[in-house]
């Protein structure tokens, strides 16, 4: 987080003016970061041997040299890398993110068609992990070193250490194959002719297993963080004062400790959004969830560079925006911190 600066309060510009200046500066930095990301990705991706045409022609079982040459020319891949990169940057500046050779579709259309699925999965999993993490963390911190605290610690450790895909597969075996309770693949029932209510319910049922799988790891992180953050605050002077005043334990925990302990969680939340895009690849593969993570993964294996750079650019923009929002929320939550 870039902006925490604790200052005394001299005469300053108006709050609104400072905010605008701050936003302009951050967005300027963001634009530079994005350009750097594109250049870096271009170079790294082209270090990998083979290109999209190798894959396309390979999947087609070969061909003739003319066929391969023709494909490479049609997609502009016979140009030197710096020409391809400059072309990409010029197009991207005009918000034209190119064409996915592999999918025969524009990159923007592809990303937009996959975005809702990923956003739904991410939102559900963030809400779930954050809520459960706070609840368990508070619960554990209030009964520190008790059996319940230890049990929660072990649970958190297990969730932290369990590989995502393994948990996903086991959940499918249990809930889909054995119990036949929840669907284990896809996002909704195909061609079911549901009305809107049934359709929502249907998506919800498909969402349970992947969202839980994705949420577990971060739930563990939040639980540990919340617990230690609560304990730290319990040790501060003003809590002793509150105790001395004779306030109830419940009131101390929820009115005095919790609001201050939750600040580090906001930081973590900002970081999680970036990490979730990565973790989504595994969950989306295991559960056949038609999201961005799998699109990116397939794009790597197929050397679909236009698509991959488009997704990376989009993901980077998402992370930058999430960080900015986190900083603003931080400043709003904690009056000692301000944007500058």
């Amino acid at each position, binding site marked *: 987080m870039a902006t925490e600066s604790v200052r005394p309060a001299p005469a300053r510009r108006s709050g609104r003016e400072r905010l605008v200046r701050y936003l302009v500066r951050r967005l300027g930095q963001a634009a530079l970061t994005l350009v750097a990301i594109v250049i870096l990705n271009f170079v790294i991706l082209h270090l990998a041997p083979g290109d999209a045409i190798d894959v396309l022609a390979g999947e*087609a079982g070969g061909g003739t040299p003319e066929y391969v040459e023709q494909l490479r020319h049609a997609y502009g891949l016979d140009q030197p890398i710096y020409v391809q990169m400059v072309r990409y940057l010029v197009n991207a500046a005009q918000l034209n993110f190119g064409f996915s050779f592999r999918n025969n579709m524009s990159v923007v259309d592809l990303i937009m068609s996959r975005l809702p699925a990923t956003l739904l999965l991410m939102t559900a999993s963030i809400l779930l992990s954050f809520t459960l993490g706070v609840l368990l963390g508070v619960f554990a911190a209030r009964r520190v070193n008790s059996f319940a605290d230890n049990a929660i610690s072990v649970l958190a450790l297990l969730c932290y250490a369990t590989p995502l895909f393994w948990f996903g597969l086991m959940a499918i075996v249990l809930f889909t194959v054995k119990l036949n309770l929840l669907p284990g693949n896809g996002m909704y029932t195909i061609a079911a002719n549901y009305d809107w209510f049934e359709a929502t319910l249907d998506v919800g049922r498909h969402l349970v297993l992947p969202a839980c799988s994705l949420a577990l790891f971060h739930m563990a992180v939040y639980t540990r963080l919340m617990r230690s953050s609560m304990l730290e605050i319990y040790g501060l002077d003003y809590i002793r004062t509150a105790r001395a005043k004779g306030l109830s334990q419940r009131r101390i925990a929820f009115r005095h400790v919790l609001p201050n302990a939750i600040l580090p969680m906001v930081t973590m939340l900002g970081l999680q959004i970036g990490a979730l895009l990565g973790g989504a690849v595994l969950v989306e593969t295991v559960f056949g969830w038609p999201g961005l993570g799998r699109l990116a993964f397939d794009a790597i294996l197929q050397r679909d560079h236009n698509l991959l750079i488009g997704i990376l650019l989009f993901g980077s923009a998402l992370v930058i925006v999430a960080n900015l929002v986190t900083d603003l929320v931080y400043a709003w939550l904690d009056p000692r911190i301000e944007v500058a």
Partner: protein
Amino acid sequence: MTFTATRFAPRLLTGGKALLGALALVAGLAAAGPAAAQGQPVRGGTLSMILNPEPAVLVSGVNSSSPVAAVSPKMFEGLVTYDPKFKMLPQLAVSWNQSADGKTITFKLRPGVKWHDGKPFTSADVQFSFMEILKKYHSRGTATFQHLVAVETPDDLTAVFKLDEPSPYIMRALAGVEAPIMPKHIYEGSDPLKNPANLKPIGTGPFKFKEWERGNYIMLERNPDYWDKGKPYLDNLVFRIIPDGSARAVALESGAVQYGTQYVVPLNDVERLSKLPNLAVTTAGYEYNTSVNYLEFNLRRPYLADRRVRQAIAYTINTDFLVKNVWFGFATKATSPITDKQADFHTSNIPQYPYDLKKAEQLLDEAGMKKGPDGIRFKVTIDWSPSGEMFRQTAELLRQGLQRVGIQAEIRNSDNPTYLRRVWTDNDFDINIFSASNIADPVIGIQRFYWSKSIQKGVSYSNGSGYNNPEMDKILESAQIENNPAKRKKLYEDMQRLVMTDLPNMGLVYIQWFTIYDKKIKNLNTTGLGPYESFADVYMEK
């Protein structure tokens, strides 16, 4: 045509030939009267099948990869289709006639056929498909139809192929999957590779395109105006894209999908699935598009340039072990580079290399590759196609065999683009393990591995070994234009003998692809195209 893996796997090991004979017999019977044998077809229902990976487009005329090949023939038809013994059966052509010199082929087309958009199908579409699409944009079509100089259209229902050399293999390349007839009115004047209809196809087939949710599914629906009245029986075909092998097994097990082909689940899962009451496993339907697992030597390497060294390496491979433990019985021992499913070309009366380490050592000594003080003669690398775990396991077995005769081998792992480029563009490999389809005729399927003109840098699955033998070229080039089937078979027997003597590459096993399907699904595999047929005859019991 249905048996469980447990029942037939041992038989494949002990008597693959007998089984194949039985298979062919059963397949023949089925082709004679499938409807009668399997009861009255039922109308209606949705068949969900597994598709992986997701195809790039849905038209096999512009993209001949296997996921496209599974979807495209449901919407696009060829002039003919083929029974399991490669006999031509009418599809968009009702009859055909080849001139004595083999240079003119006349097709009479089916009247009353309409494209999915209602426009009539005519000989102009045939002319356009072959001359403007397949000959120019199909990965194999450029070679297959190289001698096709014109398609004449004397009337709307007659198409006459004019060839400058006899090309007997053309008669095996006319199925809907290999040479789909595409609509001239949609593709004319456009770049066929980027035509939007590649994603929303207009064909003549029994099913019409309905929708495609990327990363999720492709749905086709019944074509109500299909020329074969009363067909298709199914209302919808859904291709589910399920990227994870275990998830695919679960989808079959739970009944969410009813049909999966080729590598649909890990081979060690097949036996378990075949025991489930709702599922059946069959190896029928892969006659047209059958694959062989090859081992290829890079002849540019000094050690491997010596034929005796290659033969020695061949003696170190225990193919029976491969069939049993790597392929779980879903393969038979290869005796020649041409699959035994192509009975009119295949011969096994040629040099063979049974597992024999002594012979291997003897050959290596003869070649002057003496063991060093550390017991090592020389070092090689092994690359394997990342399209299947079986190839990695084969590489490991090969490494063990090589170690026993004093050759130290290093296995290199890579993703698909890296692998393809390393082997067929950079030629930076020693030994390469991969599979390739034999596709109906040697000219289309395997000539590419042995013809010196197929040494083409940058073309995957071409002559990667760098094998250049004028004698081989002569045989192959004679066979290309030999119109007499008996003489042609003789030429290919010579060719197989030469391959097994020179060993630029060698067949390890003939892969027995399998289909796992719900027992309610009937009338599958009525032709030799299996998963690549139109599914007009397939129905689903209630």
